[in-house]
């Protein structure tokens, strides 16, 4: 099952900091999608918090590649993304759904070096 391709990666387990693009390729306060091997990863430039987040692009609700097209924001200070299809929301910090306790998504570490966006993978 496709969901199993996506497992959260801890910062200290990263073996490959993949260069996804320049910071200017990404929307401010919005999301974009990148491809890494067979994975689709949503990358969010949370300009307001001056933070970057990455998670699977696959919404676990109906298994469609859409989360990068969702809107970001916060709920009680937790940064989140809302799926564009049925508006289920997920924490960008730990991937837990804020609206449906049965769902969660994998998250990936992001760092910015020399205006390059690097996403961490463990393979």
């Amino acid at each position, binding site marked *: 099952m496709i969901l199993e391709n996506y497992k959260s990666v801890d910062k200290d387990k990263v073996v490959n900091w993949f260069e996804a693009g320049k910071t200017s390729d990404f929307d401010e306060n919005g999301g974009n999608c*990148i491809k890494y091997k*067979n994975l*689709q990863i949503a990358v969010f430039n949370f300009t307001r918090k001056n933070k970057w987040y990455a998670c699977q692009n696959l919404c676990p609700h109906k298994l*469609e*590649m859409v989360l990068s097209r*969702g809107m970001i924001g916060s*709920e009680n200070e937790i940064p989140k993304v809302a799926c*564009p*299809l049925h508006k289920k929301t997920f924490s960008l910090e730990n991937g837990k759904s804020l609206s449906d306790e049965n769902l969660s998504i994998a998250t990936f570490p992001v760092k910015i070096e020399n205006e390059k966006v690097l996403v961490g993978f463990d393979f």
Partner: protein
Amino acid sequence: MSRIIVIGNGMVGYKFCEKFANHPNSDKYSLTVFGEEPRPAYDRVHLSEFFQNEDAKALELAPKNWYSENNIELITNEKVKDINKSAKIITTANNKEYSYDVLVLATGSSPFVPQIKGVDKKGVFVYRTIEDLEQMMKYAKEINAQKNNGKAAILGGGLLGLEAGKAVMDMGLEAHVVEFASKLMPRQLDIRSSNVLQLKLESIGINIHLNKATNQILGEEKITGLEFGEDDKLDVDMLIVSAGIRPRDGLARNCDLEVGIRGGVVVNNKMQTSDSSIYAIGEVALYNQMIYGLVAPGYDMANVAVNQILGNTEVLMPDDIDMSTKLKLIGVDVASFGEPYMPADKGHSVLFEDKSKFLYKRINVSLDGKKLLGGILVGDADDYNMLHQIYLNGMAIPENPEDLILGARSGEKSSFGSACDLPDSAVICSCENVTKGTICNNLENGTFSSFGDITKNTKATTGCGGCKPLVNDLYKETLKKLGKEVKEVVCEHFQYSRQELYDIVKIKGITSYEQLLNEYGKGDGCEVCKPVTSSIFASIYAETANKHNVNQDSNDKFLANIQRNGTYSVIPRIPGGEITPDKLIVIGQVAKKYNLYTKITGGQRIDLLGAELKDLPSIWKILIDAGFESGHAYGKALRTVKSCVGSLWCRYGMDDSTTLAIKLEERYRGLRAPHKLKGGVSACIRECAEARGKDFGIIAVDGGWNLYVCGNGGANPKHAILFAEQIDSETVFKYLDRFLMYYIKTAGPLVRTAAWLDKLEGGIEHLKEVVINDSLGIAQDLENEMEKLVETYECEWKQAIEDPKLEKRFNHFVNSNESDDNLVFIPMREQQVPKEW
């Protein structure tokens, strides 16, 4: 530690667990629950929703880990096959044995299937579990694949049968409800209301056959029809049996517990069976010689049983059980309460019937005229909650009881008074047994401060949901009483209503979301407030959705409707539905080139579905070059102005409706509003453009146009209301400019004109005062603001393809030009559609 075992993990079995988990003594007991179904308990009452979303998880009452977190052992997929009363041991189908101190039977009931010849044929189903539905859907799909006029019958015209009728329609089959009695919902309706309901159901495509005794089910291996009499047959491809329920009392019979003549485990008002260590609750329990086929009494029983077992022996089941019900078929209102019908010597009845509107209302009043004894509502059950409360609480009724169903005719809308007049003991939510006192007292003493607090703490509205309007009224009225303003705030980030935000943006000249959030909000925003403010900016500054695109709702962000597989649909504007052959050809060419599924929409235009994000700009380039522009089918904006062909061709046409529709559509195209807007123009009262189902509708009459406003199709259809008569087309535009602008400025987010008018203080008369008589002195401003929006209109698709910066957002990947590799299409009637979820 005392051991409790519950057999059955259905709705009532689950409620037992929930009440147990919340009980202070529960740590002195261990609880093990056996469920025969493969999954934990789910919401059977809303089972039909499974047809829409096939989402079993969404129906779940609590996830599996909830049970373990509350120290409850849940064993699913395990049927209990035997009870040994004297040894206090049960045995499961896998021959495992468990001993108990207290046993609770919550085995529910099974559908009753009459022994008709042929009921075992393929294609005959019952309607009780998720698995039943899955099998039905699979079978319906096979039928639909073979022919396109498949039919299904439902045996039984009760509450559940009618719900199944709707489900059959949703599965794409023609629905036939077959009932043995001479009326529908025999327990709840009288003959007249049944007739009215029958007309209504037939009008939406559910066929009704009364007085039919089914002799046999026809067909070889699978069903092909039903036979009633010698020459009386009905051809169908499928049958759903919904002929009542039978309590699942087999376990009880085998161990000699007392059961009723027609089944059901006999219980007293402690829910105890004839063996004092065994309890029975829910649809398996026979209480007062009745099986109650409803969830609310079952929940009560669960509460009584938990309290009895855990030591609060004073909690008993009441003698009288309320059997009032409301049918939850979408689009058809039916409710009955108390004694729906009764002999004339018990009281007198007031009836109101209007068959042309599918309306029937009946109330039964005591002989002294003081009490409401019961009633029936068909076609409009808005007043059900209040009438039901008046009945339950024995409240005084007006001197002229007919006011209760006709509304007091002195102009005031309601003759009920306020929800706050109900006594504190009034049970508002019967599923969760929440009283008015619990809701209002906690609001008054500050324990609850929001609607969410009420539902979270009391669980009111979380069962069947029928009490939601009443809880909402109580919430608002109590806050008002406390002198607190009831604020409809947009979301946690803005403590303002949409109208207030609109005024702030306008007066302070705020031009970006970030600025608004920094100065007037808090936090980082969300998917609720971002689109609201984008819409406000659009209405004030005539901005297209290309500006602020990260803050636009996902459809607006990409100027297209997202489809269920993440692809998009393209709907070019075809004003008034008029289109040249050349333009039709271009649409065909585009569809062919990009392999798009093509369909005529319900809005007189053409939808091209299944476009990949990255292809949208090139598709639109071809369309724009051919003279098309955005149809804004994705926006909360003007969609279409539907027309009939009118006097250009039609022999009855009284004016040129097509030209007026095109002019209107061109004037208001792209107008962003709190919700979408639709219009219609018909050239005579035959009303082929369905103008009265639109936010604004215009109908040609002798001497001019009649203007109607605030109609709605969709989920809650409402006819538009006559606003002005015999006006010329210039006045049509003048009134519409003012009307639309007033709506845009004052409505809440996602509130359509019909719902807005419902809430508007003073209603249609106020609206006429403002728009026609300029009572607020703002008419000129409204016209000017509209004029500015019209003048600065730009096609946002044209903008998007002309500016490379704007175009960038349409790539699926930032770092690759590839397509989304997760897309799978399947062939369908020479076109293609997304694979199923």
